[in-house]
Every structure is written in C-alpha cells, then in structure tokens.
C-alpha cells in the first residue's frame, strides 16, 4: 500500500530474453555526447551496453524487445560504487603511501599499489555469490519520460 520510501535509480533498457524467473535486459550506456556520431566510441566505453539479469516474479509479463525500466536502490548504487571504485582506490593509495614509507622507492611503491588491487579483486571474486544476492534489481514496463 505505502509508497516506497527508498529512492531508486532508474535506467531504461530493452528486454533481451526471458527464462524462468530471470529477465535479461540490455541497457545502453548513454554517453554524455548523446547526439555525437562517435556515440559510444567516444571515451572508448563499450557501446552496446550491458546485460543485466533481473529476477522477477512476473518475468512472464516481459517479452523480448520490450522497453523496460530497471531500477536499483540508490543506496545500493552507492554501495556498488564503494566496492567497485572507492575501496580499491583507498587500498591502492594507502598501499602506495605505506610502501613508500617503508621502502622509499618510487617504482616499487607504485608497483605495489597497482598490484595490491589484485588480491582485492580476488576477494571480490570469492564473494561474488553474496554480492549477487545483495544487488537486486527491479523491473517495470518502460515509460517515455525516463
């Protein structure tokens, strides 16, 4: 009954396929220069977008080709941001400064800093299951406005 209190981020996409209670949705990375011929090549971001898997109890309501909106809690978005970028950033920088403090060697500390994110990513990899559980998406039929 009650309105959602959480804030959502919305992103339009197109249903790619639908199996079981899983809907695969392709979202476009809408780059800044929307009307540029270079489109997605600019900035060298992949162009065709990504496939998002959405679990939905009403997956049969969605058919391939349909325009939908994918939604995600803003707070989850921030969490993803933290795990994806901020935390490795912090690890990298603190590794850099620590190593520099210890060894005083620039090349060594730089390499350490860069390599430190490898174990971080490994940890992420080990936890991918629980992350999958946590990052849930909602789906709804698309609207023109968004």
């Amino acid at each position, binding site marked *: 009954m009650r309105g959602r209190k959480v804030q959502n981020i919305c992103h*339009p996409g*197109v249903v790619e396929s639908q199996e079981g209670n899983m809907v695969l949705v392709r979202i476009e990375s809408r780059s800044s220069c929307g009307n540029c011929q270079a489109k997605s090549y600019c900035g060298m971001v*992949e*162009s*065709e977008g990504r496939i998002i898997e959405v679990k939905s109890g009403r997956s049969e309501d969605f058919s391939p080709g349909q*325009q939908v909106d994918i939604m995600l809690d803003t707070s989850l978005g921030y969490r993803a941001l933290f795990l994806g970028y901020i935390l490795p950033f912090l690890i990298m920088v603190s590794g850099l400064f620590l190593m520099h403090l210890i060894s005083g060697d620039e090349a060594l500390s730089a390499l350490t800093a860069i390599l430190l994110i490898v174990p971080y990513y490994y940890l992420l990899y080990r936890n991918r299951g629980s992350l999958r559980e946590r990052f849930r998406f909602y789906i709804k039929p698309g609207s023109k406005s968004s």
Partner: protein
Amino acid sequence: MNELFNEITLFSVVSLGAIGGVAAIILFMVAQKFRVIEDPRIDIVEGLLPGANCGGCGLAGCRALAEAIVKDESLEGFNCPPGGSDVMQQIAEAMGWEAGEQTPMVAVLRCNGTREFAPPKVQYDSAMTCTFAHSLFSGEGGCPFGCLGCGDCVRACDFDAMYMDPESGLPVILDEKCVACGACVKACPRDIIEMRKKGKKNRRIFVSCINREKGGVARKNCKVACIGCGRCVKECRFEAITMENNLAYIDYNKCTLCRKCAPVCPTNAIHELNFPVRKKKPADTDKQEKNV
C-alpha cells in the same frame, strides 16, 4: 641517414610496440567480451527517422523504433507519425522491403462547446490545467464531458500543431502540422481528442461531441451537443454510425464521406471538414463554417 634513423627510432619502435602490444591484448579481450553485434542497419534506419524522439510510435524514441524495425525485419505494425509514409517508404527502399501502406491520421477535437454554444455559467479561477479543472468541477459551461479549455493538449503538442483560440475557448488543431503523435490524446483528461483517418483530400466527418447524458440534459448546457436522437444513424446507408449511451459515433473506416448525416443533425453536432460549401444551405450552416 644516421640523422634520421638512430637509437631513438629503435627505442621508439620497441617500446611503443610493446605498449601497443599490451594495449592490443587488453583491447582484444574487450572486443571479445563486449563484441559489438549491433546491426549497422539500425543506424541507417535511425538516420532516416526524423529524430524528434516524440514517442508517437509507442517506443522510447527514434533509436528504439529503428532497433525494433531492424529486429523484426519488417515495417509491419510500425508507424512513425511525424515522418509519415514518406519516411516509411524511404526505410523500405533502404532495406529493400515492401512498405506497408499507412493510413495518415490526424487529431480531431470532438467538442464544439465554444463560449457561444455552451456559455460559461461560472468562472474558473485555479491552476490552468485541465487535469485539475476536471477533478474540481464539471466545467465553466457545465458540460461534464466538454472541453475545459485550459490547454493541457496544447502544451503536450511538441509540433506546434495546436493553439488555444481565445475567442471560442477551445483548442484548434492545425492539420498540416499535426503528425498524429497522439500526445494530446493522452494529455486530455476528458478523452475529447481522437485520432482519426485524415481522409481523402483531408475530408472528415465526425460527431463533435462526446456527451453521454440524456438529450435534454446535454442540450441544457450546450446548444450543439449530440442529443442522441438517432436521426443520423437512420440516415447513414453504410452503417457507419452507431449510437451508444445517447451518443452517436461515426466509424471512420466505414464512413464514405457521403455527407448525408450532417444536415439531419438537429443540433449541428456533426462536423464536416474541408468539404466544398454546400450549395443549398440547410438551416444554420454558418455555424459549421466556424468549425472549419
């Protein structure tokens, strides 16, 4: 010679080759993982579309339509109202398909409750939005079906195809600009605007009223309301007119534009657009001319 090709050349070639190699491997992997399988035809189709992103096709923008068309490999069921059949024809040519014949449509206003015919009984003094006015009261003229005149439809039109006539208090649709995107239809809280076939030579006949009240009641608020007398239904030989809830409706697919029905309507609720002037004027054609 040494001037041009020295160890700098060597270092350059080697190091950049190495960097390039590493980059290549990474980018190669990228290409593998995120292969671009986008059909180049989508771009072509998109290029042909007008780019108004109006949503008239029912999809989220021109690109979406282009994708859908290419995906279906056919134009069946797709329609770009702003572009019209011209664009569809072009796409068909570009793709080497047959273009499906499109019926050009246009928006019509099914209310003639001008200040003259449905004089205002009260004065509205709130936000100029039909949606709110509709929720507040039946309207200045008292007709609970008629146009409220706050112009939600006009604001919804992206193509400058509508304007509010200050005289009549009704919106006016400019046929030549209307691309049948349907935005106004959605905007009107009273469903007054209908998308109809443009018709031969732009000619259209329709009942310009959607009042479903009983005749007397409807007539009390508006002189040109459809009173549900049924004369037009009897007059039409093509069974194009139906009567439901005291309201006549002309089916544009059946109507042959024979013009028989209009003169018999006692309230002049039936509109003829873009016809030549009748030779023998029935009682009050002057009113009809206003509507053209």
